[in-house]
């Protein structure tokens, strides 16, 4: 018998996901799951699910979970945490949910310093509804509601979540990461671990933005999508730690 050196995280159910080939949502769930497992808090973890491509994640979470209305995950997580202060709350939100319809809830939960961990999958597009322009869509990027490419005179400029949230006093950790190669995956996991450790230690709010892919709506191969993150997205959304308070 060989030695077990890798296994599926116990945080997720043993079933395939609906995510498109080359999409990073699944990898993000997996990394969070591994982190929660390594931190030994699976037995008090709650997944707070938002509206977007990750809405059906209630079928994957192998822990108690709650599906939220569009944009309201930080408010719902605030309520969960008020009732269950010792639970470990994982919010997974996309850019439409977090930066557009739910911007008020995002900023307000961060401002109050709610003891939660927000994972922001920024893929520059509305994936679930078929590729409309997002607040994060790059200048010149084509989407179904900006078919000629995003024109800043018509549609404004990309909004930057980390930069905004880092201006607030309460957040403890604000970081942007990517997943386009092994070192970045390892780095993302490290930052996620810190973000959840903050919550376990009741230090307060942590925000991890992950530059994510959407091969389907970008009309790119999975490989080209990863290169797009590295070459195009990173230029507008620089990786790094924007705030880290111990």
């Amino acid at each position, binding site marked *: 018998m060989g030695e077990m050196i890798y296994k599926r995280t116990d945080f997720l159910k043993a079933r395939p996901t609906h995510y498109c080939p080359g999409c990073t949502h699944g990898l993000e769930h997996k990394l969070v799951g591994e982190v929660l497992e390594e931190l030994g808090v*699976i*037995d*008090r*973890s*709650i997944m*707070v*699910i938002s509206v977007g491509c990750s*809405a*059906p994640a*209630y079928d994957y*979470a*192998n*822990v*108690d*979970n*709650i*599906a*939220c*209305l569009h944009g*309201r995950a930080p*408010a*719902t*997580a*605030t*309520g*969960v*945490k*008020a*009732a*269950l202060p*010792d*639970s*470990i709350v994982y919010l997974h939100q996309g850019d439409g949910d977090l930066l557009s319809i739910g911007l*008020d*809830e995002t900023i*307000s939960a961060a401002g*109050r310093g709610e003891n939660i961990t927000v994972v922001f999958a920024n893929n520059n597009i509305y994936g679930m509804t078929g590729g409309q322009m997002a607040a994060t869509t790059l200048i010149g990027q084509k989407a179904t509601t900006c078919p000629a490419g995003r024109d800043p005179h018509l549609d404004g400029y990309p909004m930057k979540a980390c930069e905004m949230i880092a201006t607030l006093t309460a957040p403890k950790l604000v970081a942007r990461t990517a997943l386009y190669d092994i070192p970045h995956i390892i780095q993302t996991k490290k930052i996620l671990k810190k973000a959840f450790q903050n919550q376990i230690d009741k230090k307060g709010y942590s925000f991890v933005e992950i530059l994510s892919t959407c091969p389907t709506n970008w009309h790119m191969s999975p490989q080209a999508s990863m290169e797009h993150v590295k070459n195009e997205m990173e230029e507008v959304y620089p990786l790094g730690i924007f705030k880290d308070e111990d």
Partner: protein
Amino acid sequence: MKKLMKGNEAIAEAAIQAGCKCYFGYPITPQNEVPEYMSWRLREMGGVFKQAESEVASVNMVYGAGAAGVRAMTSSSGLGIALMQEGITNLASTQVPAVFLNVMRGGPGLGTIQASQADYNQMTRGGGNGDYYLPTYAPSTLQEACDLIQKAFDTAFKYRTPVGVMVDATIGNMMESVDIKENVQPDPSIPDVNEWCIRGGRREDGSVHRIKGLFNVPEECEAFNEELAKKYDKIRENEVMVDIKDCEGADVVIVAYGTTARIAKQTMKLGKENGLKIGMVRPQTVWPFPYDELREACRDAKGVLCAEMAIDQLLQDVKLALEGTKPIATYHRLSGVMPSANDMYDACVKLAKEAK
């Protein structure tokens, strides 16, 4: 022990005594004393108070706390309740219990900050999408408001549903003597919340609890709606509350609730003094509505006067109850202009004369 208290504060205290552990709210007149009172009193009692960034956030905070099986509530006025409607239908669809207090002001839109009953349709017909109802209590005294908000928590948990309590700004802002029941224990018939609520992790058998209202399969959503409908039938069957006074042999029956019902009492007195027999049907639940009780109570009446601080909203239910069997007249004042017992009496006299 009887105490003289302001409406909004008394209702907040009653909620705490009924085990409310989490309150989330956003300021709006005429209910600001509720969050103000909760901010110190609930914390003093070991609960959680959060001032939300909006009513949209409040209702979703209530959702999170309710999903954890905790007694949670919010309060607002019509405009804020309008913002909460998506959250209320979500609570109905996820079967999460919670209590909503609406201290009604004049509308439509920004309207006035004074007393009104123009949120009747908002509370009983729902502003959210889909096939759901909001069981709603409509107390007319401060004592009744305190008793019914305590009952509202039990109803919410008994049926796993959001429940409304609506009072007008007069009840919220007046002072009256109340005897608030302390340390009220939950109705023993309420199922154990641990059967459904989220707690974190999973059960010993490996199962997880999920709170969700989204369906990917049409047949599953249809079946869920049918189940929900059965629940509403059960509520209709068991939870109707109505106060019927002097309806036997009455010439005119007034249908009124809340503050309007208090004024109608004065009108009944005027009737007694002047030889016109006036009875009253006062719905204490406006959903479910006491249709059968109202029809039966009006059996002897020549006519029925529907009195409200709204234009023909309660009237729709009165018409449904009477099914065209009695002449109906209406009397209303709006937007903080209070109904008058004398004018209401004149309307009764006119109705009795015309209905002969």
